[in-house]
C-alpha cells in the first residue's frame, strides 16, 4: 500500500502568457509507513506536488493513486471510491493556525469528523484522541477559544483538526515554519511520535536539511518541477553536486565533517546528525 504519483504533469494557467509548468512528468512512490521528506528550492514544484496527494489539484495529465485507487476518478462507479481514498490523506498547510474559525477548540477540531458525518459520540471520541496526540489537555482546553492560545498551541490545535479525521497518510507543508526553537522542537517531536507510535505515514515538506536528516527515512528532492533525487537521507545527502544544483545544501554537520575530512582528519565524512558527528570526532581524538 502506498501513494503512487504516476507521470503527473501540472500546468498553471494553461494557454495564457502566465503559463508555467509546475510539475513535469513526475513519478514517485510514497510507501506506507515511511517518513518521507520533500525538499526543494522555492518554486521547485514541491507545494504543487503535495496538493496533488489529496486531490486539491487535479493533474493536467497523469494520475495519483492512493492504495491503488485513482483519486481523480470521475466515473460513476469510481467516484465514491476516489473520495474515500482522498480522505485517507490528511493535509496540514503552512501556518495551519490560519484555518481555525470555530468558537471553541473542540468545535474546530470536530469540523472534519462532522463533515464525514460521524455520530456525535464518535466525533467526541475523535476530538479527545486528537487533542491528546498533539498534547493539548482536553479538560483544560476544549472549551477555550482557539484564538486565546499561543502561536505554537494554535498550530497544534489546527493539526489536531486534521488528525481527527484519522488519515492514514499525513501531509505537512513546513509544519514548524515561524515557530521559535523550543516550539519547533516540540512540534517535530510530536510528528515523530505520530510516525512511531500511531504508525502514521508522514509526508513532510521542509526547508531544513537538519530536520530531514534527523526525522526522515525517505527523501525526495524536487528541482524545476522534476524529481531530482529520491532515496534515504544518507544516499541523497551524499550527492553533493546534485543538491547544490537543486539550490540546497547538505546538513551543516555534514558540510563541516566533509571540510575536516578534506583537511586530512580521518573523520567520518558521511554523518547526518550532530550526534553522529560528535561520535566520530570523539573517536578521532581518542576521548570519551
Amino acid at each position, binding site marked *: 500500500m502506498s501513494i503512487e504519483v504516476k507521470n503527473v504533469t501540472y500546468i498553471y494557467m494553461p494557454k495564457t502568457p502566465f503559463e508555467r509548468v509546475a510539475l513535469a512528468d513526475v513519478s514517485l512512490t510514497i510507501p506506507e509507513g515511511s517518513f518521507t521528506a520533500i525538499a526543494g528550492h522555492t518554486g521547485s514544484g514541491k507545494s504543487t506536488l503535495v496538493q496533488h496527494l489529496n486531490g486539491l489539484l487535479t493533474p493536467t495529465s497523469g494520475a495519483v493513486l492512493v492504495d491503488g485507487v485513482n483519486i481523480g476518478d470521475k466515473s460513476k462507479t469510481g467516484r465514491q471510491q476516489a473520495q474515500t481514498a482522498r480522505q485517507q490523506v490528511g493535509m496540514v498547510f503552512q501556518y495551519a493556525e490560519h*484555518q481555525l474559525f470555530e468558537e471553541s477548540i473542540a468545535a474546530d477540531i470536530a*469540523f472534519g469528523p462532522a463533515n464525514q458525518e460521524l455520530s456525535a459520540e464518535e466525533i467526541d471520541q475523535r476530538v479527545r484522541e486528537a487533542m491528546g496526540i498533539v498534547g493539548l489537555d482536553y479538560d483544560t482546553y476544549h472549551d477555550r477559544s482557539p484564538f486565546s492560545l499561543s502561536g505554537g498551541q494554535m498550530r497544534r490545535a489546527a493539526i489536531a483538526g486534521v488528525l481527527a479525521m484519522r488519515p492514514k497518510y499525513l501531509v505537512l507543508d513546513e509544519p514548524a515554519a515561524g515557530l521559535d526553537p523550543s516550539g519547533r522542537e516540540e512540534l517535530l517531536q510530536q510528528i515523530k511520535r505520530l510516525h512511531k507510535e500511531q504508525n502514521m505515514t508522514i509526508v513532510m515538506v521542509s526547508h531544513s536539511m537538519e530536520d530531514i536528516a534527523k526525522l526522515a527515512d525517505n527523501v525526495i528532492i524536487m528541482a524545476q518541477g522534476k524529481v531530482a533525487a529520491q532515496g534515504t537521507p544518507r544516499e541523497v545527502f551524499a550527492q553533493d553536486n546534485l543538491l547544490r544544483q537543486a539550490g540546497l545544501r547538505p546538513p551543516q554537520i555534514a558540510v563541516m565533517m566533509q571540510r575536516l575530512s578534506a583537511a586530512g582528519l580521518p573523520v567520518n565524512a558521511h554523518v547526518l546528525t550532530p550526534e553522529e558527528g560528535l561520535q566520530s570526532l570523539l573517536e578521532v581524538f581518542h576521548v570519551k
Partner: protein
Amino acid sequence: MLNNIMLGQYFPGDSVLHRLDARVKLVLLLLMLIEVFVFTSGPAYGFITVVTGLLIFLSGVPVRLVLRSLKPLWWIVIFTFVIHLFSHPGQELARVWHFAITQEGVVQGTLISLRLLLLILLSTLLTFTTSPLQLTDALESLLAPGKCVGMPAHELAMMMTIALRFIPTLISETDKIMKAQQSRGADFTTGNILKRLKNMVPILVPLFLSAFRRADELALAMEARCYRGGQGRTRMKELRIRRVDYWAMAAFVVFSMVMGVSLYI
C-alpha cells in the same frame, strides 16, 4: 481556482498612454464611456471600436493580455447577447423551440454586447497603463475640491491604494484557506443557497481575522515610516499636465466630433 481573476493589473511601459497624466486619463475615460452610452448607432460603434483597437495598439500591452482580462466576464457578454437575440419583436430570422430570433434582436444584441466589451476594454486599458498609486493620486487630486465640504479625499485615496495592493494577497489567501477547509471535508459546491452560505463561514472567519491582523500590522508599519495623514505629504511622482496631455484632449475633441457626426450617417 481563483488565480484566473485579473484586477487592476499594471503593465509597466513607456507608451503615450503610460505617459499621460492619470487625471486626464481618468476624466477622458469617463467621458468616453458616457459617449459609448449616448451615441448608440452602428457607425458610431464601428468608429469607437476602431479607436479602442488603436488605443490598445498604442498602449504596447500585448493583445493576448488584454483579451485575457475579458475572460471572467465573457459569459456576461454572451448572456446579454443571447437575451437580446430573442427579446426584440420584429422580422423573424429563425426559430428555436418557441422563441424567435429577429433581425432587430441580432442588431440590438450585437450593439449591447459590443457596448459591454468596449466598457470593459477601455477601463482595463486604464488600469494596464496607470500604476495603482497614480490612479489613486489622480482620484485624490480630482476629489480635492470636495475637501472644503469635508470629503476625506486623502483618506479615501489611501484606502484605495491599500485595497489595490492587498487584493492579490487576499485572493491567494482565500485560495489557501479554501483548500485547507476542503481538506477537512468542507463542501462549497452542493446544497441550497442557505446551506452554501453557511458553508462559507469556515472561509470567511479566517479571512476576516487575517485581514484584521494585516490591517493592524500595516498600520504599525505605516506609523513607523512617519505616516501622519495627508498633511505635509509630498509625492515622488507628481501629477503634471504636459504637452502630451493637451494633444490627448485635442484628440478627444476630434473623436467626439466624429462620434456626433456618425449619428447622422
